[in-house]
């Protein structure tokens, strides 16, 4: 049953929210020991919140558009009184005294949080293997990773632990796990969803977005979490999107470009597997069949995304993560002086990938290297924006694969950081440009695992993106062998 069907059943009184939540909690109980999607299941609070929804329904009050819908929240978003860890030892046990704006908004819409989901520590990773609390497994094949960094949120929806979930996407951390788990995953325009209460990784890249099984659920959740927030200076000053009403408009007359550099074209990024490229081409054909015009386009600087990203994101992260120093919250490892205490705490509290990125970012910002690295990467962002603007003068949206491959095996890519980083090659450009992008399941790979294709659009083109995503969903081949 979709989140929207559940909500309408709860709103009409046909189903009790408490029952809905209990059903999902039971599923979590039965299977999360194996999957490890959650860092914490908030069963008691969830039942209380569900009871409040039922009471509202009984009292004839509007319980909100997502009434009684179980939702999982990535454990890098602050939840009052509920431990928020970023899957890091350095924050273990920290209970924020405040809610992230998105957490408030989903609760106000009647959704019920069932737990906080696992992630790569501080959202740094593409497989959810870099968690202090152990890896999350892909519910479709538990020998595989769910992708990352929002792997727990993806797995929670794929395993029916929750109808919806929230992830954060700095370089692909929503879209790539959505592709690996056969879900719809959306990274909205930078500034479209408030970052207040999201524990920062790369502040100029981070965006929160929805996971769901269908496009319409994704649109409904983005409508709830989007819109201006005065607590986030980078929040765009406009009201929430209207997305659900445009989904049935089709792609007739739409111009869609296949982005050569990220879709296996010549001179583009390497390492895209043949089955993923094939599904992307089939998706293009399906859109064409549905009435869109499909052309091949080129954005040469898209191939520079990976390099620019792995300078910008770690640089910002190195500063964002300075505050974890053992003084005010979280872990402290005692030492004779404050300076030594800070070093001991950070050394013990951060995992290897986080340390690697802090080191890289500190280096990129340090005296003598700023111009060569961070400053230069910001200029690459400008070049990319200019080139994308030229392309968007010709086409409405772009199509690429979401990830180079289907879900890989646990442990396959942990030895060499670069082999992990290239996972983000197709998703990173949208973070650098701040543009919206969605991953929609489209068939399966040779291994029978889902393939995701990605639709990219210019800033605030969410309605167009969802319109095309709905058409892709409708045209997608039948269910894969595993789902």
């Amino acid at each position: 049953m979709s989140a929207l069907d559940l909500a309408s059943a709860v709103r009409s009184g046909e189903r009790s929210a408490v029952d809905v939540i209990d059903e999902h909690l039971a599923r979590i109980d039965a299977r999360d020991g194996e999957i490890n999607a959650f860092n914490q299941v908030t069963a008691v609070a969830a039942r209380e919140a569900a009871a409040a929804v039922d009471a509202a329904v009984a009292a004839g009050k509007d319980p909100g558009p997502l009434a009684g819908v179980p939702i999982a929240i990535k454990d890098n978003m602050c939840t009052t009184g509920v431990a928020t860890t970023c899957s890091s030892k350095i924050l273990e046990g920290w209970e924020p005294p405040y809610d992230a704006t998105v957490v408030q908004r989903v609760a106000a819409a009647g959704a019920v949080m069932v737990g906080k989901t696992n992630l790569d520590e501080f959202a740094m990773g593409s497989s959810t293997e870099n968690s202090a609390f152990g890896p999350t497994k892909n519910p479709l094949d538990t020998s595989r990773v769910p992708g990352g960094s929002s792997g727990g949120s993806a797995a929670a929806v794929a395993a029916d632990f929750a109808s919806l979930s929230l992830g954060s996407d700095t370089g692909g951390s929503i879209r790539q796990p959505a592709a690996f788990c056969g879900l719809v995953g959306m990274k909205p325009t930078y500034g479209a969803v408030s970052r207040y209460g999201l524990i920062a990784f790369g502040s100029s890249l981070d965006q929160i977005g929805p996971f769901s099984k269908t496009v319409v659920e994704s649109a409904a959740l983005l409508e709830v979490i989007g819109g201006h927030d005065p607590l986030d200076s980078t929040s765009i000053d406009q009201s929430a999107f209207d997305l659900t009403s445009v989904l049935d408009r089709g792609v007739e007359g739409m111009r869609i470009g296949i982005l050569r550099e990220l879709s296996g074209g010549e001179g583009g990024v390497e390492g895209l597997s043949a089955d993923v490229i094939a599904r992307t081409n089939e998706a293009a054909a399906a859109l064409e069949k549905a009435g869109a015009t499909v052309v091949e386009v080129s954005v040469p600087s898209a191939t520079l995304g990976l390099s620019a990203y792995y300078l910008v994101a770690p640089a910002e992260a190195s500063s964002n993560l300075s505050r974890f120093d053992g003084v005010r919250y979280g872990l402290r490892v005692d030492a004779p002086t404050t300076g030594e205490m800070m070093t001991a705490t950070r050394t013990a509290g951060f995992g290897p990938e986080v340390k690697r990125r802090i080191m890289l970012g500190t280096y990129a910002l340090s005296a003598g290297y700023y111009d060569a690295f961070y400053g230069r990467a910001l200029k690459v962002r400008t070049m990319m924006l200019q080139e994308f603007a030229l392309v968007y003068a010709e086409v409405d949206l772009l199509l690429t694969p979401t990830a180079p491959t289907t879900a890989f095996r646990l442990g396959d890519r942990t030895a060499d950081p670069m082999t992990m980083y290239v996972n983000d090659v197709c998703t990173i450009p949208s973070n650098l440009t701040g543009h919206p992008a969605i991953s929609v399941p489209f068939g399966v790979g040779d291994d029978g695992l889902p393939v995701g294709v990605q639709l990219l659009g210019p800033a605030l083109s969410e309605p167009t993106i969802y319109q095309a995503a709905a058409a892709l969903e409708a045209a997608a081949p039948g269910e894969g062998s595993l789902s």
Partner: protein
Amino acid sequence: MTAHEPSLPEEWELVVGLEVHVELATKTKLFCGCENKFSHIPNTLTCPTCVGLPGSLPVMNEKAVEFAMRLGRALGCEIHPSVMARKNYFYPDMAKDFQTTQYDQPTNADGQLALADGTIVGIERAHIEEDAGKTTHVGGGGRINDATYSLVDYNRAGVPLVEIVSQPDIRTVGHAKAYVSELRDILLAIQVSDAKMEEGSMRVDANVSVRPTGSDELRTRCELKNINSVRSLGRAIEYEARRHVDLYTNGEAPRQETRHWDEEGGRSTAGRSKEDADDYRYFQEPDLVPLSPTAAQIAEIDASMPVLPAARRARLGELSSVADEVIVTVVERGQDGLALGAIEAGADADKVLTRIQNDLAVDDWSAVTSESLAMLIQMETGGELTATQVKQVLGEMAAGEHGGDPKVIAAAHGFEAMESNELETLVDQLIVDHPDEWSRFVDGDDGDRKKMQGFFTGQIMKATKGQADGRAVAQLLGQKSAG
């Protein structure tokens, strides 16, 4: 201005630049809605943002920006589009382990400050930044390096500051002190800070170096911190300059370093140099957007600019012939409005200013009005009160006694002008001595009568050295002519 100051040996010249931190008198902090005030109860003026809790975000206070621009304009600066930057360093009172400040694009640049004696000191920049919290060192007599532990209070964290950086244009200790008092007067005049050095809302660091007289080189400078009063500033600069001269004389040279002024010991001591002090890894604060003041905003600030101390001094200078330092003192105390009013009401300008300077050096003089002061000065001029009596009456006027009415106060003390029979004898003698004048008084037209009344009054004042009561004289003349 210091009349004589112990100077360096003639062959050496002092070179000083000042960095003044000023707390802005906004209601709330720079990036959050916490109250901006002093509180003895630690950590009660805090929120997620100013304690640097994970997930929190800054939003800029519009009043702080306005105050900063107003200060910039008062210092003759150009206002530029600006960005906030992060200055990264680890210290427990810096809640995020970076300070949000302005770096290469400050709001205000290229201004100047004119000292009371006309000397111009260039202003390099006046930029916006946040204050840090406060650490208290426990044990070891409160000294940082002997403490057994320290306590951190974040009430002050995030309080808006403007740092005003002067050019190294200051050549004497007197000018350094004059710079600080002039700056304080400006801050008070434009009402952006209470500018109290003793309470830390205005903090002065001095960059001190020396060079051979006549040379225009800039030699190694030392930054002096922990200067808590204008007096300390003078002592600290003097000490430091002599230390440099001694070093050079001995064939040595100072090291560029930060030194702490020890007021009690009357000396500066080197701080432990920090290994990474000059690698702050500045980069643009991604959680804030640029400031871009419009020409209209700047024009509005200029239009609302009050008359600044320099112009107020000039005005009093035009009206009087007292020494400059009298005017400087009166303007510094903010008593120039009172003086101007009294002068406009007809009181003698030099007497008004001298009285205010000598006899109104009190904190609260709000009970004295321009009218009452003018009346007092006229009583003095008219010989009703002796100088000693005026001083006493003015003191009681300031204290608000007898409704601040100088006549009532004088009467209450029985301060009377000369006995009337003595006065009558004098008048009779004058009539005999000046028969022509007397007949013009008795028989002349109104103009003559008035002129001659002035003549006789003047003669009597001359004879009584101003002790006679002018009104009593007028009365007597009237009686004699009628009678």
